[in-house]
């Protein structure tokens, strides 16, 4: 008891230990990033020029490779000109944590460069809508089909071999096709999310359905359940908690298709923001936007998990068993 066991096989840690580790899992990468950013001797492969000296092509604020800078200094020392001065710096694509933190705020408050461009929050909202519709439409067909395939062999045989084949076709490959059919705006993007999610969804849901304890079906049969009530009163309530977990995981996958989907047709949403900012070399904004996707994804998942505990009060049983 007194001695804390951090490495017992498959034993859950104490809540306090878990909490510490959860925090650490975020702190550790942040520490590495901070170290690389704030300790010049660690990496900093560039020199940021503070005074160009007699080197013709250097300007204040310019980033040059350190060996180039040193070579120029050495040549000047021999020929006896004014030496350039500079400080060690990281490449522009690796902003420091505080710069990204500031960008989190400024990205929302900076006005778009052109009149017809969108604010960041508008772009984010576009992305969320694309995800939502893609996932919603996929679930609308995929979940019932998966449940039916998991319940009736005839539907499984009829659909699953083709679905199995189709899921190997990479969703982005359908990009050009989707644009040709659905135009350049939201529709083809939603279609890509749909294609990326749907086929996995059918297979995962049918598998989950098959994992239902068959003795529950047998018990229902001996209690006089007919075919319809077997499906609606046993199969569906019996898998609903696992189904909910599946959908949470699938929603995560849908996000991974978002970037590709948004590049199709006219680039839009958070992807448009990211590519735009990368073009202006505002990498702090790029990092901030990428992290926002992570934060939105993680927050929805946590909220859905909380919600699940509320709507499925018998769920703790599964966790304990």
């Amino acid at each position, binding site marked *: 008891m007194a001695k804390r066991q951090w490495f017992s096989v498959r034993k859950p840690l104490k809540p306090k230990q878990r909490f510490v580790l959860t925090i650490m899992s975020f702190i550790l990468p942040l520490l590495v990033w901070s170290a690389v950013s704030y300790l010049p001797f660690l990496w900093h492969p560039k020199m940021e020029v503070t005074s160009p000296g007699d080197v013709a092509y250097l300007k204040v604020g310019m980033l040059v490779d350190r060996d180039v800078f040193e070579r120029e200094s050495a040549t000047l020392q021999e020929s006896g000109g004014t030496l350039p001065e500079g400080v060690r710096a990281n490449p522009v694509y690796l902003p420091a944590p505080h710069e990204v933190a500031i960008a989190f705020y400024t990205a929302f408050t900076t006005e778009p460069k052109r009149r017809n461009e969108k604010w960041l929050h508008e772009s984010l909202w576009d992305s969320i809508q694309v995800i939502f519709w893609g996932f919603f439409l996929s679930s609308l067909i995929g979940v019932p089909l998966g449940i039916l395939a998991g319940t009736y062999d005839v539907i499984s045989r009829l659909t699953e071999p083709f679905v199995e084949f189709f899921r190997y076709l990479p969703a982005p490959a359908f990009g050009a096709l989707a644009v040709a059919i659905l135009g350049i705006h939201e529709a083809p993007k939603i279609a890509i999310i749909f294609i990326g999610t749907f086929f996995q969804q059918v297979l995962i849901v049918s598998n989950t359905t098959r994992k239902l304890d068959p003795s529950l079906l047998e*018990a229902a*049969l001996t209690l006089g359940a007919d075919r319809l009530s077997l499906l609606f009163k046993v199969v569906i309530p019996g898998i609903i908690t696992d189904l909910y977990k599946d959908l949470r995981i699938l929603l995560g996958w849908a996000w991974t298709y978002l970037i590709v989907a948004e590049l199709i047709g006219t680039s839009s949403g958070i992807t448009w923001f990211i590519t735009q900012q990368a073009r202006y070399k505002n990498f702090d904004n790029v990092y901030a936007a990428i992290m926002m996707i992570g934060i939105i994804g993680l927050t929805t998942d946590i909220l859905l998990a909380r919600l699940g505990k509320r709507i499925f009060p018998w769920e703790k049983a599964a966790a304990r068993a």
Partner: protein
Amino acid sequence: MSIVELPSYLEQSDKVRDRFTRLKQRPVILEVDQLSKQFDTPQGSVTALNKVSFKTHRREFVCVIGPSGCGKSTLIRILAGLENESSGRVMLDGNVVHGPGPDRGMVFQGYTLFPWLTVKKNVMFGLERSGKGRVPSETEAMQWIELVGLEKFANSYPHQLSGGMKQRVAIARALANQPRILLMDEPFGALDAQTRAKMQSYLMDIWKNIDITILFITHDLDEAIYLADRILVLKAHPGEVQELIEVPVPQPRSPEQLLSPEFLATKKRLEDLIHPPEANVEINGDHLNMVRMVALDDEVSSVF
């Protein structure tokens, strides 16, 4: 072993004999006629049951006992309609049955309560399937829950109950449909000895008070003798009826009878049937081939 000479298990007191005569005059509820079952496996066909025939009468308590793999579960699953027979037939009240139905209740060894339903909703499941409305189902379900003494847990979920309580709910759920026969496949097999004894007396109380015929599978000889009017003994490979024993222990039963001569005589007979004496020689006659693995000068060099 016993110094006292046991009576024969076939010897019945007048009262017991009289009871069996009357019992056999009751209407037949379940009739199993030449029932056989073959399973097709990759290794070829396996005969699980071979021409099993027997009858149970109304409000009779029959236990089925036999060595592991003799087809007890297969038999009860066919009776419940969860498995198809290869040949022969099963009749309930004189009608051949096909497929599962609410007229044959079943209690499984594993707890097959629906985890997403409360105790009350579990018991209501069959009632609602039979077309009863919500309100009458609920009232009726509560009566069955009271019968098994779980009214305090009516709104609990199965995971909040102990094993014994779960099995009581399962019994209430099966009985709520008012089946003609209650089929039970080692229902108390997963319970500890104490809970098991309690469940046995609950079941006896229920059986005495309602119109139900029970077919009960067990591998516990004491349980079989304690509960049953008659015991159907099966033998393995292939599963066949070996004997249908009329238990000479008088009804109503009480735990004190576990040491009565009739009880011991019946137990001896069952032991002889299920573990034949010839087979025992091989196991009991030889000791295991052991080598001493504790040093002679060990602190505890001998367990005696």
